[in-house]
Structure formats: structure tokens, C-alpha cells
């Protein structure tokens, strides 16, 4: 069995809460669209209830307060795409008792991760002379490729309430394991029909469940934004594609959108 997602193992199911003082939280970001941070602000009605549980020390998106020296929880969005970001991430990890990766970019390298394929071709294709301001670019990778990650909130973008649940686990502790089910099981529960029956590709066969099949419920096949489950059987999924007359090369191409840096992709080759 391949490794399952991190879920507070380093913390032994305990939260970082300290009864004598408020927990200090920072929110930081690397290469991303900022959409997952926005999703945090997008729970308007409950925003102060969530933020009121701790001391929010640093959040560049919403506040000009500088990054503090010490804190308990680091919430991190984005993929690591420069040496500078890699160093900053290591520093955050050293100081944080708990590190929460939010969104596809942080958990799977997501869409920025697509550039990992033939990485060294890309910068020169966009810039004539790569500007100094780009820093020392490296092939994109998820946070877990560089440091230990305690909790992951998947999808592109994250669901604000999924984030809140994971934050609660970091604060108060939890022994709940991450799901490794595939999205197909959500559609079975929802009693929705299957795109494969119509000869259409859907990534639910191999993608981690948890979103409730949001896209499928709105008539669009799963695009795989949660990343493939550690229990995904890619070989079997390819056979299913063949059986339903869906192009296997389309399946493999679609996998690249959120899994380009996943080892499982390369083992299969």
C-alpha cells in the first residue's frame, strides 16, 4: 500500500492549542492564484468565528502587520517554484508546530506543477531574458517534497469549510485519517449517472474523494483537482477507458493537470 496523506501524525493526534495563551497562526503563500486564501475570506458569515479562535499574526493578503518571530501554525498556499521559496518554506517549517498545506498547488504542485514536464524549456519560452525578479527558478514541487506537512486541504480551490475542519484538527487534535476513497464512490452515494457510459472521460476513477463530486453534480466531468488517491489504480483505470471507448492518451494527458509531480505517474511509465 502506498503512503496515505499526512494527517497530523507528527502531532500524534494532539492539537497545538495552549490553554495559557492564544494559538498564533500565520498564512503564507508561494506560486499560486491566491484563490485558496480568498476562499478563506469567502466564508464571510463565519469568518470572525473562525479567526476569533486564535491570534492571526500574519496574513499579507489582508493585513500590513509583519511576519512575527514565533508562531504555532503555518497555513501555506502555493507550489514551490524558486530556491528562495524553498528556503522560506524550510524556515516556516522550523518555526511552526503544525503546517497546513492548502489547495492543489501546495498539496500536489497543482496547475503550476504542469510546468515540471520539460521544465527547463519553459522559462525561455516565456521570456527572452528571464528577469532577475523571477529569482532562481526550480522545477515546481508540492510542499511535501521539501518539508513534512501535517495537514492537507485538497482541491482547486479548497472548500472554505474543509479548511476550517483541518484548522480545527490542527488546533484541537484529531485521530481521523484522511480518506483515500476515489471520487467514484461519491457519485455512487449521490446516485448520479456516469460520464463513462456516454463515452466521456472523467477523472473520478482515480481522484481522491472529499469534494462531494461538485463538478459532476453540475454536469462537468471530474478534472482531478484533488490529485490521485494513494490507492488509485492507474493501470486498471486505463483499461476502463479502453472498455468504454475513451481515449487512454486523453486520460494520461488529463492526469498531468494535477499530478505531474506525483511519483505514481512516473512509475507507470
Amino acid at each position, binding site marked *: 500500500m502506498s503512503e496515505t496523506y499526512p494527517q497530523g501524525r507528527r502531532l500524534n493526534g494532539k492539537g497545538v492549542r495552549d490553554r495559557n495563551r492564544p494559538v498564533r497562526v500565520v498564512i503564507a503563500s508561494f506560486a499560486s492564484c491566491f484563490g485558496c486564501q480568498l476562499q478563506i475570506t469567502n466564508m464571510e458569515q463565519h469568518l470572525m468565528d473562525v479567526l476569533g479562535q486564535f491570534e492571526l499574526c500574519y496574513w499579507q493578503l489582508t493585513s500590513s*502587520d509583519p511576519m512575527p518571530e514565533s508562531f504555532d501554525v503555518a497555513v501555506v498556499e502555493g507550489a514551490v*517554484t524558486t530556491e528562495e521559496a524553498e528556503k522560506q518554506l524550510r524556515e516556516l517549517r522550523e518555526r511552526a508546530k503544525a503546517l497546513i498545506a492548502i489547495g492543489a498547488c501546495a498539496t500536489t504542485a497543482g496547475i503550476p506543477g504542469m510546468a515540471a514536464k520539460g521544465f527547463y524549456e519553459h522559462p525561455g519560452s516565456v521570456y527572452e531574458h528571464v528577469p532577475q525578479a523571477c529569482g532562481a527558478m526550480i522545477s515546481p514541487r508540492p510542499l511535501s517534497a521539501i518539508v513534512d506537512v501535517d495537514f492537507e486541504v485538497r482541491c482547486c480551490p479548497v472548500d472554505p469549510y474543509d479548511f476550517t475542519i483541518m484548522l480545527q484538527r490542527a488546533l484541537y487534535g484529531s485521530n481521523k485519517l484522511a480518506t483515500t476513497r476515489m471520487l467514484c464512490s461519491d457519485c455512487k452515494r449521490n446516485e448520479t449517472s456516469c460520464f463513462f457510459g456516454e463515452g466521456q472521460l472523467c477523472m473520478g476513477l482515480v481522484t481522491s474523494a472529499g469534494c462531494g463530486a461538485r463538478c459532476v453534480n453540475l454536469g462537468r466531468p471530474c478534472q482531478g483537482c484533488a490529485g490521485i488517491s494513494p490507492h488509485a489504480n492507474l493501470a486498471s483505470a486505463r483499461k476502463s477507458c479502453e472498455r468504454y471507448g475513451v481515449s487512454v492518451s486523453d486520460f494520461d494527458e488529463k492526469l498531468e493537470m494535477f499530478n505531474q509531480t506525483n511519483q505514481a505517474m512516473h512509475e507507470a511509465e
Partner: protein
Amino acid sequence: MTKTAISVDHIARVEGHGNVHVVIEDGEVKTVEMNVVEPARLFESMVKGRNFNDVPYIASRICGICSSSHVVTDLLAIEHAFDIEVSDRTKALRELLVYGSYLQNHATHLFVFAAPDFLGTSSIFPLSETDPDLFEKALNIKALGNELCTSIGGRSVHPITAVVGGFTSEISSTEYLVLADKLEAALPFALQTVDLFRTFRCPELQTAGDMLAMVQDDTYPVCTSRNALFVRSGQVFDAQEVDQAIEEYEVSHSAALLARVRKTGSPFFTGALARINASWDYLSKDARVAAAKAGLRPPEYNTFTNNVAQAIELVDVLIRCSELCRKLALADGFEGDSAPVSVVARAGRGVGYTEAPRGALFHDLTFDDEGRVVQASIITPTSLNVANLEADMRILAEQLVADGFDEDAIRLEIEKLVRAYDPCLSCSVH
């Protein structure tokens, strides 16, 4: 010799990573740089070779806050390249989606990013205690933008239902009517927002650059025209000729490309203020009255007033969206349905053009005969704005130095100016 270096590392309350660097020597402003250090994700290179169907989905991820605009712009580019005509209903839904991102963006920018500058706080959160009513209403109008985007696109960030040729799902007539009621109910607060931002004092600053906005006969357009106007020079160009009208260029201090008018070399501003200058006559009546009351009438070239311009657009958007929702609720409101029309790929080039909340947005895509991307160029509002922002920062710094302001005051005013531009640095680099 006295030398003052003003630096703001990782400027707060903007989307993305940027630093400001200003050097003043003996009362003379020497260097002014907007140092965009947002990591490059290399979208233009990444989408090469991809099937057209995946491209809007990928392009959406350029920016969280204006994801709807990126999707719609990309769809327009693809449909233009393949010569696909979509239904009027689909067009109306796309307009709603773009407007939804106006509500989200303007409410977030005005209250979460800009307002603390004028309230003297580091963030909006203290407002929850000092003025809970304003805080709640501010978040409510932002939430309404999210609700609109969720109703039409299926999600507040990165829409699901908008695909090449149409929409995969739609809400019911009843839901459209409920939405229309909510949009109308938010109008008094939007008007109050205009009044609030009108009272925030801003330095006198006349931008030297031009202004760029979409124009269309008899309309205040956001995604229904292919014509772009340089307000000051009067030059109009078709979106398909964007590469001939606008020149993008590299500088080492910015990961975002900068832009200038190709003909004149002039930098320019794009955004709410440019739109109001270009299409003032077609603002809805309430919005125009609110604008006049706020003292904003064309031509207005103080880029600080972009804040008020966005507040005016909030009013305009609420009125337009409620009208669109009411019409969508009628069985015969729009011709055709929104189910995706059939699509046949072909080789060709298409430029999609919309007015994103922060200004003109172009996606220039070339496909091969299988519908795979051969070439992509994405020109975002903030990359269009950086050169003009730097020019404005210089004018502002020179004025403040001449008026004897100290370093801290200059720093704060420059930060305010950056935020008035509402830059999206993640968009600008992409």
C-alpha cells in the same frame, strides 16, 4: 548629499508578491521601481500542446479573484478561433459571471485591501468591533458576489459550468428571481460605499499616461465588444490586433512584462476609472448620479480615484445583474438555451477580450487543426498597468518631496497609490 531609500518589501493587502523601491537623492527622485517578484508559473508555455477544452480550465488558475474573467476571455478566444457562435442566453450568463467577479473583486479590494489605509488600521478586522454594521455589510456585498458566481459558475472561485460553447448547468427561474431581489436589496449599501470612499482624501495626482477600456455603442461593455479605446489619444483598435496596438516589454526588476502603447511609447492605465472615462454616458442612471455626486466625471485622470470608480461600478453592476437575472427567469427572455453548442476545432488564431474587474484582459491563442495550442499570449490588466503605476509613483514622490513630506508619509502614500491601482501580481506574472 542626503540619500533616502524607501523600500516596502512584500507590499501588504494586494494579491501577489511585490516590493516598492524608491530612491531620493538631494530632494530629487532618482529611482522608482515596482519590483514584481511573484513566482512565474509560465502559463503561456504550459498550455502549449494542450487540447483547447483544457485551456480555459487551466487559464482560470492564473488568478483566484478574477478566475471568471480568465475563463470567459479564454472561451471567447477559442470560439473566435474556431468561428463558433453561442446563444444569447450563454452570452448573458457570461456577462453575469464577469459581473459577479466585479462584485467579488471590488468589494474585496475596497474594504479588505484599500479601506484600512483610510481608517488607519493594518487590516479590516478591527472594523468588526469599531463599526460592526459597516463590517457586516461590507462582507455581505462581497458574499453576494460569491453567491452570484456560485449560482452561475458553480463555485465562487474557478467556475465549473462555463465551457466552450455554453454552460453545463443552470439554476432555476425561481433562483434567478431570488438572486435579483438580493442584488436589488444591496443597492443602498453600494450607494453608501460610494459616499464613504468619496470622503477619503487622496493626493492630487494627474497621470501622464493614457487610459484603455472596452467600448461599444450604447453600452457599458464588459465582455460583449471587441473594440478597445485609448481614452486620451482616441485610438481604437480591434482585439484581434492587440499585439500591434500594445507592446509588451521585459525589465529585470519585474517578473511581469510591462506594457506601452506601441505607436507612442506611452504607458497607460486600465481599470474601473478608465471604463468610466470611456463609457460614462452608458452607466446606469443611479450609478451616474452617484458618480456625479462623488465628484467623479470624465475626464478624470487622478488614478487614486480608481477606488471611487470601483464603488460606482458596484452600483452599476447590481442594477445590471438584477435586470439580467429577471430576464433569465423568463421563459422567452433570451433566445436559445445555454447547453454547449457543438464544437469543431480548426487551425487559427483567436483573441478573447474582456474587461476584467481590474481592466482590459486579452487571451491570444493560436491552434493547430486538432485544436491544440500552438502559441499563447496572455495580457493581464496588471501587467498593462505596472509601467503607468511606476510613472505615477514618480509624480507622486516628486510632489511629496517638494511639499516637504517625510519618508514615512511618502511610503504610506505610495502604498496607497499601489493599492488604488488594485494590482493583481499573480495575474501580472502568470
